[in-house]
């Protein structure tokens, strides 16, 4: 049977089970971290939900750290819960996002565009210079390149993609590759 999708256009992110998001640690309450994920509620993250974490071997997480994780529990009746391991207990790229880099917000629609397979924007950016990118379904993007200037160039291009046409973007990138 053909699959048709019906979607709702939202401005604020609503936690969904399985979504990978970037959260900001706002505090520690007992054995649980509290994360701001840009939703109406803060999410909880247990210190045991990291790869190789035990009661004695606690992960090094401080207030203000950025976390890339996925929702284990997300429904309208309960507070959202996040974990930084997959179903087999491996980190698989989740956990504390390293030092430096730049975090900024874009619309939820742009995130979906960027995560689409064979996204032209990502392909074109990947030709510029080495950099690292984390895209959260909650509209948050984290970028890190070798220099501050390189990082900010990528940030500006991604932010501008909200309204730039493909032509304008290609022109902008062509100018940059000339540098």
């Amino acid at each position: 049977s053909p699959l048709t999708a019906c979607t709702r256009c939202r401005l604020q992110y609503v936690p969904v089970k399985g979504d990978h998001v970037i959260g900001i640690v706002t505090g520690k309450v007992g054995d649980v971290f509290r994360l701001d994920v840009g939703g109406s509620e803060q999410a909880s993250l247990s210190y045991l939900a990291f790869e190789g974490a035990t009661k004695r071997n606690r992960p090094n997480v401080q207030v203000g750290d950025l976390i890339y994780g996925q929702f284990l529990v997300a429904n309208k009746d309960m507070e959202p819960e996040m974990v930084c391991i997959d179903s087999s207990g491996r980190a698989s790229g989740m956990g504390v996002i390293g030092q430096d880099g730049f975090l900024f917000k874009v619309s939820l629609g742009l995130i979906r565009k960027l995560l689409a397979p064979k996204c032209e924007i990502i392909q074109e950016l990947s030709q510029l210079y080495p950099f690292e990118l984390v895209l959260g379904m909650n509209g948050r993007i984290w970028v890190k390149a070798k220099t501050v200037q390189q990082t900010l160039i990528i940030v500006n291009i991604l932010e501008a993609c909200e309204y730039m046409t493909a032509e304008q973007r290609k022109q902008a990138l062509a100018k940059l590759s000339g540098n």
Partner: protein
Amino acid sequence: MAGEVKTKLSKNLLRMKFMQRGLDSQTKKQLDEEEKKIISDEHWYLDLPDLKEKESYIIEERSFMPCEDLLYGRMSFKGFNPEIEKLMVQINSKSKKEEIEEDDKMEADVSDEEMARRYETLVGTIGKKFLKKRDQRVLHDEDEEENSNTRPKKARKMFLKPQD
């Protein structure tokens, strides 16, 4: 003797947890069913015919990931973070594997019939390898017998039960 003791105990006592530990699953099921019958008789219900639930063709999927086949959100380019780039290769190969499985069967190098023929003979040869020495000798003898019918068959020594 124990059976007589059981019939003297009351049903309520038998329903208690410590008495049920010794029971086998069947009697437990019977007790459960009896309890359910008592409860269901007391419940009120509407005396209407059962309404058939319409088969719904609508599946609710709250996440965008499966709808649009979104990629993994952590990426690295031009070797900036080698671990992440390794992960990207892993995840992409996983999704590719799923695609290949969905596609039609790959053309086999060997046809099915030939495979069956080979396997038939293979089972025989491997089976011979694991036979005990005595059985191997018998097998060998049988082969020889086919060629020359003169050789008498050696009686296989079997375990003889000692007579009381």
